[in-house]
């Protein structure tokens, strides 16, 4: 039989993947929900967050935790900038062929190519490790262990999700955001400045991406491709969970995280990919609108 140690390891692995994926999926859903834009470049923002921490740590000795705090306003502003310069123009455009969603997909795809290759130029494709002393230490619990970085990652992710939930349900801004999600015109009629909502939402999404990036960089080696890998899972999660459905995304993220962890433990990596693919196929065929269709925003 499997011992409690390995079981705990599987659980921790699943929680870790699940929480990072949930954060990524939430960032994607925020933008889709509010603006109906798909931001494939979200993964690259994650990657930049991770490399930002790496750069801060290796060049200036800034500890990842402090680095994360420093990066938050930076990425918020970056998000605002991207929204203002690129996304806004996309939204105002009246496309003859195709629609705005598709064009956002294509444009952000282009952005991915640009950002990923710039990162490859700067940092090369060799994996980079962020090895900061308190974080790489290990906490021993009965029969198992967890590294402080993993613990930090899971706790930060959960903390961010709770924060986001509170923001969306308990603040005026959150109400305005939800109003925009439900019906943009009506929100405007009620005096909500949707332009401001868009800007801030993108900023929040970028910040979430950078936080996820920090979490990734402290728990595994990173390469310029890591963002793309995570955004792919993020997309899988939001499509299966239902585009724009927040709680659904979080649930699907953790479920997939656990499934991935279990199948990795039991059968190895190739099987894990195939299993996830199969599950995705079945889920999409049965629920093209997304599983858990009763979920609220």
């Amino acid at each position, binding site marked *: 039989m499997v011992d409690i140690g390995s079981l705990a390891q599987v659980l921790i692995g699943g929680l870790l993947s699940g929480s990072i994926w949930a954060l990524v999926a939430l960032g994607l859903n925020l933008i889709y929900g509010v603006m109906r834009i*798909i931001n*494939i470049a979200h993964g690259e923002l994650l990657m930049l967050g991770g490399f930002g921490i790496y750069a801060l740590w290796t060049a200036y000795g800034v500890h990842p935790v402090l680095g994360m705090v420093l990066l938050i306003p930076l990425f918020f502003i970056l998000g605002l900038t991207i929204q203002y310069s*690129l996304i806004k*123009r*996309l939204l*105002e*455009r*009246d*496309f*003859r*062929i*195709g*629609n705005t*969603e*598709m*064009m956002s*997909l*294509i*444009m952000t*795809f*282009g*952005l*991915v*190519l*640009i*950002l*990923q*290759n*710039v990162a*490859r*130029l700067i940092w090369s494709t060799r994996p980079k490790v962020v090895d900061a002393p308190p974080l790489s230490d290990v906490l021993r619990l009965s029969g198992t262990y967890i590294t402080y970085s993993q613990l930090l990652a899971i706790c930060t992710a959960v903390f961010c999700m709770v924060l986001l939930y509170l923001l969306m349900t308990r603040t005026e801004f959150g109400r305005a955001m939800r109003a925009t999600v439900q019906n943009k015109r009506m929100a405007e009629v009620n005096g909500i400045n949707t332009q401001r909502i868009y800007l801030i939402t993108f900023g929040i999404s970028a910040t979430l991406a950078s936080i996820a990036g920090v979490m990734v960089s402290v728990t595994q080696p990173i390469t310029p491709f890591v963002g*793309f*890998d995570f955004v*792919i899972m993020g*997309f*899988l999660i939001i*499509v299966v969970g239902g*585009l724009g459905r927040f709680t659904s995304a979080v649930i699907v993220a953790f479920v997939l995280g656990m499934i991935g962890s279990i199948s990795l433990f039991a059968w*190895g*990596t*190739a099987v894990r*990919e*195939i299993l*996830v*693919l199969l599950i*995705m*196929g079945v889920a*999409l*065929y049965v629920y*093209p609108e997304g599983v858990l269709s009763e979920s609220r925003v």
Partner: protein
Amino acid sequence: MTRKIRPKSKDKYGLAIGIVGIAALLAYPYSGLGNDFTIGVVLTTMAYIILGSSWNLFCGYSGYISFGHVAFFGVGAYTSGLLMVEEGLGFLPAVVAGGILAAAVALPLAAVTIRLEGVSFAIILLVFAEFLRQITRTAKDTTGGANGLSLPPVSLELLYMSMIGLLIVTMGTTYLVTRSKVGFALQAIRDDESAARSIGVNTRWTKITVFVLSGFFTGLAGALIAPYWTFLTPSIGFSVQTSAEMMIMAMLGGLGTIFGPIIGAIVVSPVSNELSAQYPYISGILFGLLLVFIVYVAPEGVLRIFQERSITRYISGRYNAIRNGSDKSQSEEERDMRGD
């Protein structure tokens, strides 16, 4: 008598150009104008034309943008490669098998994604292609994984002639499909899917059929060009940049046209090959910029030039598009102003 194929009046020009083009391609290697290197460039360009056209066959006419078409390319390339290496199968049968397997992969994929709306469809195809890449990478024992698969050499002459053959078949099929009932059904889906369904168009069957066809040709192209590169890795066979290139070719030339992808391929292919070999990162950045450029400046492609009355009007129309966010051409704006 209702005809199965309804050509448009401009088709005769296209056919003429096509015949001249094929003749030129056939004569080229024997004309003494080229060497092995330039023939290889032409070969790769032909492969790109096929890739762009088969992508356009489904995506340009149906309006469903596929971000993961490289999946079929990789399936075709790996299948034929493995058959040649492991089973010693001959080149042509292996290529055909590659195409068939790609189509076989396309079929269930289409069936599963058929009910997805445009955005989800695009994303899921991207996810699928990435997953295929991962699976190919981790199943090292079969596919050689990241260390790659070495393909047996095939004579340039055989490659070149087969590529011309595939080009003719692909363009011919594209022409026949787009001018047939299926093609019109597809375009009806692009214009308004629920309206199409309500007038009796079998959207499911149409989408699945054309998607499988598109995957088939993409797989054949992959199977044909891989031996020229003699080496296959998951990153090459399932590279996301190849999907991007297919999209760029079709969009640059003009979605939903027959010649669009051809023009797109002629522009993209040499750039892609030469640049990627020397500076792979720069080529990636360039294509990314190109995609962004296409979205903002010319989402309908370069062939739009023929709709405007002059090139300056086309350029000012594009400028208008960026400034004012309106995709109307000058002529349309004028008509709107006049109140026609």
